[in-house]
Structures are given as structure tokens and as C-alpha cells.
């Protein structure tokens, strides 16, 4: 067996890190992304433009980012956790102040050469900041009430900003990610029970403050037949397309529902529907299975890690990924209301892809540096 303390004695060299990098995992991601390329090729009626080629290019950039991020020492990420979080928070505020309105919602910040979505950056940095915070606390300390104020603030501030944009999907994702890290850090059960009760009590208040389109989505979800040509159209059409695909699907590029433009947003949020129509139950299950392998791998990375920071980062990345997959696929199958959450690695989209690959880079960094023992005290960061 490998000497587990092999790396604790000296700093790892780049070549050692490259060997430790799990290339099979990257291949797995490529496999998933390739299913996306194929569907984007099909959406464009058998053309690489406008989507498939650009998506592939973004994936390539994403791979470069992932490898670079993975090479960085985990302790440096820990040191950068708060500054990065602060940076993302400032960007979110900047969007509120100066951001321009795209697709009816204020989400994008124009940096001149590229439009960035600060909420995407926040998803990653929130994980880092929370992991950094709980790394410094013992199990008993973590559950002390006064020690909860800071993490609740760390989650609450960006959630409030994102809700103001308004971007309900991201707000839910951020809250869920925060809850998962608090849960993994070992907070007592009773806090979660209390929070659950609080959420139930808050529903009427939140409902009254929702935007009309958000209310419509929820109402329509609860009763899709309520407005089959308005807001219910998406769900209904998605179910028809998916259901008519059957076990083996209608064949690649043969999906009548998708190809005939019955399906909205089929290259972004509803791409899973298209896959289900053209490649059937089999194709859909293959993709879900691939996702499941990714999740199990990342969970294993968390369990193998010898420092709390790495564990929490890994579980945070893993669960965020899971939330994306689950919310998106449930939505297109009519199990959840329509919220704008893309299918990771498959949906067409730039920032989401890049921030996801950044997160996988962190996961890989945890994997590479899994044998590091990082002390709890402030001396932990140089």
C-alpha cells in the first residue's frame, strides 16, 4: 500500500501533481460533454455552428482551467477563500448598481471583453469560504450558536443580492449548497429541523414578494393544465417530447418535437428533453449513470481527504453538481417548476461551463492534496 504520508513531508512537485491528477475523471467529463456536443449538433439541424463548435471550444478552455486550478496548492486556495468570496460579493453588488438587464433580469456584468455572471462565481467562492470557516472549528465549536452567525451571513448576503436580481434558481442553489456544507460540518440536527420549520412559516411571506412570472411557474407546476398555452406550455411540450421518445428514442436528429420547434430553449435548459426524445430512455439513463459516477467519485474524494477544508470543498462541489443535475432533469420531466437551471456540461452556455470546470479543478486539487494535514488554528495559513 502507498505510504499515505508520502506527501506530507515535502512540497509536491508539478510532475507529481500531474501524475496524481485523475485523468480518468477528466475522460468521464469529456464523455458527458460529448453527449452535449452531439445534441447541440442535432439542434442546429446537423450543423456545428452556431452551438456545438463554440461549446466544444468552451469545454477545451474549461479543461485548461480545471488542470490549472488543480495544480494550485490546496493551502493557497484556503488562504484565498475569503478574498475570493469578498471579490464575488463586490461583483454581485456591482451588478445591482451598474449591471445591465439581459433576458429581463439583471444578472450580467460587462467587463468590456466579456460578460460575466457574478452569481456563477459566487457559487464556487461560497463553498470555499464556508469550508475555510468550518475548517477552523472543532465539532463542538461548530454547533455553538454564536459561531453560526458568520456562516449564515456568508450564505445570506449573496442570496439576498441574487433574489433582488431576481434569480430564484440561483438563490435556491446557493441556499442548498450552504445548507449541505453546514450539514457536513456536523451541525446538530435540531438546527436543520428548526430551519425547515422556519422555511415553512416563511412561505406565505415569500409568496407575496415573488415576481408574477415566478408565481406563475409555481402555480403552473402544481397544475400544468391550468394554462397549457402560456406558462404550462414548456412543461407540457417537454413531457410530450420526452414521452414520445420511448425506450430507444426516435433516432439521432430525428426528434420531431424538438426539430419542429415545439420545444423551447432546447439548446439550453431543455436539452435533456431533446436527448430523451432522440435517444430514448436508454440514452437518458446512460447520461444519468455517467452523472452518478461523477457524483460517487467526488464523494470518494471527500472521504479520502485528510483535512476538513478539502472534505468540505469536495462535498460542496459534489452537491452543487448534484443539485444542478437534479433540478434540471426534474424540471424537464415535470417534477419541479420551471427554473432557469442548466444541465451541467451539456446545456449550451459559457459562464456556467467555465465555473463548473473551475469547481472540478478545486475538487481535483483536493484529490491531489488529500494527504495534507492542515492545522486548525490561524497558523494554518502561512
Amino acid at each position, binding site marked *: 500500500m502507498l505510504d499515505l504520508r508520502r506527501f506530507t513531508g515535502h512540497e509536491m512537485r508539478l510532475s507529481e501533481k500531474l501524475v496524481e491528477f485523475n485523468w480518468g475523471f477528466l475522460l468521464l467529463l469529456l464523455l458527458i460533454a460529448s453527449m452535449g456536443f452531439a445534441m447541440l449538433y442535432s439542434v442546429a*439541424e446537423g450543423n456545428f455552428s452556431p452551438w456545438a463548435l463554440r461549446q466544444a471550444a468552451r469545454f477545451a478552455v474549461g479543461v485548461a482551467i480545471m488542470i490549472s486550478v488543480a495544480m494550485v496548492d490546496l493551502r493557497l486556495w484556503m488562504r484565498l477563500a475569503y478574498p475570493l468570496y469578498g471579490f464575488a460579493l463586490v461583483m454581485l453588488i456591482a451588478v445591482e448598481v451598474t449591471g445591465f438587464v439581459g433576458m429581463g433580469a439583471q444578472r450580467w456584468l460587462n467587463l468590456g471583453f466579456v460578460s460575466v455572471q457574478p452569481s456563477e462565481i459566487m457559487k464556487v467562492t461560497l463553498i470555499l469560504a464556508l469550508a475555510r470557516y468550518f475548517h477552523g472549528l472543532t465539532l463542538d465549536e461548530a454547533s455553538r450558536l454564536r459561531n453560526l452567525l458568520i456562516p449564515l451571513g456568508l450564505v445570506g448576503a449573496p442570496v439576498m443580492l441574487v433574489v433582488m436580481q431576481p434569480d430564484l434558481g440561483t438563490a435556491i442553489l446557493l441556499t442548498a449548497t450552504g445548507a449541505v456544507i453546514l450539514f*457536513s460540518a456536523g451541525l446538530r440536527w435540531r438546527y436543520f429541523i428548526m430551519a425547515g420549520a422556519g422555511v415553512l412559516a416563511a412561505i406565505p411571506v415569500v409568496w407575496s414578494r415573488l415576481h408574477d412570472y415566478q408565481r406563475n411557474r409555481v402555480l403552473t407546476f402544481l397544475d400544468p393544465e391550468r394554462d397549457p398555452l402560456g406558462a404550462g406550455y414548456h412543461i407540457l411540450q417537454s413531457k410530450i417530447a*420526452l414521452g414520445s421518445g420511448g425506450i430507444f428514442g426516435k433516432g439521432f436528429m430525428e426528434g420531431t418535437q424538438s426539430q419542429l420547434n415545439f420545444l423551447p430553449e432546447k439548446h439550453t435548459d431543455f436539452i435533456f428533453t431533446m436527448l430523451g426524445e432522440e435517444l430514448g*430512455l436508454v440514452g437518458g*439513463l446512460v447520461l444519468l449513470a455517467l452523472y452518478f459516477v461523477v457524483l460517487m467519485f467526488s464523494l470518494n474524494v471527500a472521504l479520502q481527504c485528510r483535512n476538513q477544508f478539502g472534505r468540505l470543498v469536495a462535498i460542496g462541489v459534489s452537491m452543487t453538481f448534484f443539485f444542478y443535475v437534479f433540478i434540471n432533469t426534474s424540471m424537464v*420531466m415535470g417534477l419541479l417548476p420551471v427554473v432557469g437551471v442548466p444541465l451541467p456540461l451539456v446545456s449550451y452556455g459559457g459562464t456556467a461551463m467555465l465555473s463548473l470546470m473551475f469547481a472540478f479543478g478545486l475538487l481535483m486539487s483536493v484529490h491531489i492534496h488529500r494527504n495534507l494535514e492542515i492545522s486548525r488554528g490561524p497558523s494554518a495559513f502561512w
Partner: protein
Amino acid sequence: MQISGRDSNRYQTFTRRAALLAGAQGIAFVALAGRMYYLQVLKTDQYRMLAEENRVSMRLLAPLRGNIVDRFGRTLASNRQNYRAMLISEQTPDVEATLARLSRIVEIDSFTKKRILRDIARSPRFMPVTVAEDLSWDQFAQVNINEPDLAGILPDVGETRDYPYGEELAHVLGYVAAVSEKDLAAAEGDQPVLKLPGFRIGKEGIEKTYDKELRGVPGSSHVEVNAYGRVIRELSKDPGTPGSEVVLTIDMDIQRFAWERLKGESASSVVLDIHTGDVISFVSTPAYDPNQFNMGYGTADYKALLESPYLPLMNKALAGMYPPGSTFKMIVGMAAIEAGIDPNARVFCPGHYSLGNHDFHCWKKGGHGTLNMHDALKHSCDVFFYDTAKRIGINAIADMAKRFGLGSTYGFEVPGEKSGLVPTPGWKRAVKGEGWHQGETVIAGIGQGYLLATPLQLAVMTARIANGGYAIEPRLTRAVGGSLLPVKEPEFIGVSEEAIRVVQGGMNGVSNEIGGTAYRSRIAEPGMELAGKTGTAQVRRISRAERLSGVLKNEDLEWRQRDHALFVCFAPYDAPRYAMSVIIEHGSSGSGAAAPVARDIMHEVLKRNPTRPQAGNPSPGGQKSARAG
């Protein structure tokens, strides 16, 4: 795995809870798979039926393009019904045979046929492709009656752009035309509306500049279609938002008058309000018919446009660059006064001016005798300005020219603006790599040499002289989508009152004093007097031999060799409101060809007085009644 003691508590808890999360994930995935099984296996027959037999389809509806109107609300560009025949290729067994049958009703030439077959190859088989447009009512009725025979042909009524004034406004409005591959590639993001059959976008002029505003937001209709894609009924319809109306500053009556007056020449003319920069008319002749561009220009017609020596596709008013000739003398005059030269000082004109071993000639062979600046402008004496230019130098002249709007663009609403050229020694060194010669300063004194200006710039220059030195900028749009665009408060150029007074007076002399070069083209009605300046820009070089044997008269030269005729003016002289420029290419003489035309147009402008405050035409705020002297 070994975990050090103080961390083991946390690790154990973590492991336990991670396992719980993994379990939750597993349950979620099982639920997803179950849902897929339910939809795709248990319910698949039901959904397949829904998909195959009774499909609800969402179709994009092209928004109605916004109208373009003149300053009084008269329609300059609108939409009219367009009867057309579409072809859905999957509904006919033989496209060629269908086209052959259709060609008995509507003529389809080989060029069009090629285009149709290309479009069919390029779009999905259920997408309608335009076969013939702009059918007469008879033709359309016949297509409808014969529909059973014409498998795959779909009679359809669309909207198409209509330009009631045709070529009179071509260089202002531009035109719309079918979306090209290039347009698709250049479009930001995914704009499915561009792919609608028959959809058109602005390609030139106002149509291009305000394409986004004019286009509107596409609507959609939910229709029930059968398995062949044929519409059974419409379930609901969102017509979308029609495009915004664009209100121009043009007065169509004056535009039309100016067009009629210049028709037949290769010419251009711009009329401005000197306080707001509102463009009252903007003419470039000859022009093309935007309606034909919209429906696809015939090959032969288009070739004729391209090959015409009078360049109908060129927007001469903003892209034609000409030596300003004597119309530039006001700039030299003002630069001289600013340099401290007394405008009352007299210069002797013997008919020529010597510099080194080179002689520069005055247009008047015997010379003008002694004259001051007022008379030099009035008689357009060349020697006076040769001498003045040499004394103050090229940099002083160039500086004044730039302050009055020459040598730069204004961000005008019609694309294609040219900046012209105001030469300086620095420019010459950078571009030509040579030093500046004094002779070039001398020749710049009469607006020749490297100097180049567009008719738009000359109108702006004149307007800035007329308003007492305020840097107004030309604008063509009054309002977009119902909100008036603000008039920019013009900056003061910083020119002395005396300079403005002398130059305006000189222009008054040109038009209203006996002996002025445009006295014949004055407006005699009291209160309407115009003040102008003629210009005759030489296109060819006159050799010493020709000078000795007698300069050839313009009538004896072929058209291309004749001088350009220029005239700029403002009016009324007592209380200026409008300024304009006219350039007639190879018109031989400013006073003979350009001044009479300008006079007629200005007279019409003054009679209509289109920018006076009146109902529906509120006076824009912040305007100056400034006039020096």
C-alpha cells in the same frame, strides 16, 4: 484511513453525514429513472399520439416594422400587403413540376428558380420558402383557385416595406432587404426571427441605423398542426410589439422640391436649421429605387446602377469629397482676422500672384484692382486670399477649418460619412513623407490643393457661420418611438464677433450687392434675402501652355473635365435660420449652375419655414437667436 486524533471526531461525523447525502442522491436518481420509465415506457403511447396527431406548435410572427415619417408626420416608409406564394417542399413529390405549373400563373425566371432551389436545400423540409412575391390580385386569386393542382404551394399574405417617395429619399432612408448569410453571422446571439421566410432588415441609411428600433419584438402564435405540419387552427396569438416610429427632421415638401431641382444632374444638396442642426432636406442625385432593393433588384437594372458614371449608389451628400473652392474663403478670412489682420486693409490684385518662379492666377484675367476683405469675398478675388493665406500660414487656416466642422465626421445617422481632409504640414509629413511647400498654403487659400469637404460639411460650416459661431451638429432624427430626442446645446467656437460680421457681410455682398458673384441669384423679397458664396472647384490642371494660348472654356471640355459648381448660403440675412450647400458635379460654374438652384431651394425653404414654432413642431429648447453684428 488514518486520521489524527483531534480530527477524528469531525471526520466521523463527516463520513456519517456524507453517507446520508449519498443515500439521498441515490434515492433522487432512482426517482428520476422512475419518472423517465413512467413517461417513456408506461405513458409513451399517449405522448406519441399527442406528438404525432395533434401537435401544438409555436410559430414566430414577424413584428410589423415601424414607420418612418417626416417632421410633419407624413409617411416616408411604411408597410403594405404583399401577396406571395410559398412552397413547402415536403408537401410536394416533385418541386420542379410544381414550379413549372406555377410558372403558368407567375413568371419564374431561371435566376429566381436557382434561388428557390438553393433556399429549399438550405432549410428544413417543412419550412415554407418564398417562391414569388408582390403578386397582383389576379395572380394571387389564380394561385388560390388552383391550389389543389399546386401541391406544396401555400398562398400567403405578408407585409412588405413600401417607400412611397422612391428614389427621392433613397439616400436618406436606405432600404431593407432579405437577410443574408453574412447578416446572420453578424447578428448578436440567436435571433430566430431573422430566419423567417421573407423577413427583411435595414441595409442602408436610416433603415440600417435604426434597424433595432424599427424592427420591434416578434410575436408568436400557438397553432394546432397535423402530422404534415399543416395548420388546423390557431389557438392563441401574441402579435408581438410593432417597431417604433422614427420621425425625421426632413420636410418632405422641401426634399421633393430640392430633388426635382437637382434631378438630371450628378449633384447633392443639404439644408440645415442653423440653431438645431435639423436636416431639412438631404438630396443626392441620381439615386436608386429602394422599393426595388426590397423586392430584389433585377440583374440588368442592378448592373446599370453599378456602371452608371453618375454613381447612383453613392451618397454624394455625405460621402462625396470635393475641393471646397471659393466657399472656403470665409474660413481663410476669419483665420486672418483672428491672426490680427485688419479686414479693411487693401490688397492689390493684378490678376496673378507670384511666389518664387510660380504664378498663381486670379479667375479674373485683368485683376480686381485694390480691394478689402468684404470686396474680396463679394468678387471672390483669388489673389487677395493667396496673399492672406501666405501671411497667416496653413496652421491658422487648418485650425479655423476644423473649428467650423471640416475634416471630421459628426456621427450622422446615415452610415458612410466621410471626413474629407484639412491638410497640415504634420499630415503631409505623416502621409506623404514630404515637407510642406508654401505654394500649397497659397493654393489652400482658395480652397484648392489637398483640401476636401463633403456637402454635409459645407452646410455645417455655413450654418456655424450663420449662427454666430456655435458648433451645431447635423441631425436627421427628431424622435424615436414617440420620445423627442434632445437637441444638443452647441458649444461656442470662440470666434470673434468682428470675424463673423465681416464674413457674413461679405456673403451678403456676394448675393445682394451689385457686382457680387451671385447677385443674379438673389432673393429680392424683403426679409428673405440670402447671403451666399459661390465656388468653382477645378478638377484638372491647367498647363502653362494652355494658360498662354487661352484657358479652355468649360463648354469645350468633356463632362468629366469640367469644374465642379458649388454654392453655400444662409438666410434670411437679417435673422438667419437656415443654411445650405449645393454641389453640382462638373456643373462648370458656381455662380452659373449652383447658385440658381440653391436660390430656388432656399426660397422654398423660407416660404415654408419648416422649423418655425408651430403646432406639432415645438421649438426645441436651448436654441440661440445668436447672431453677431
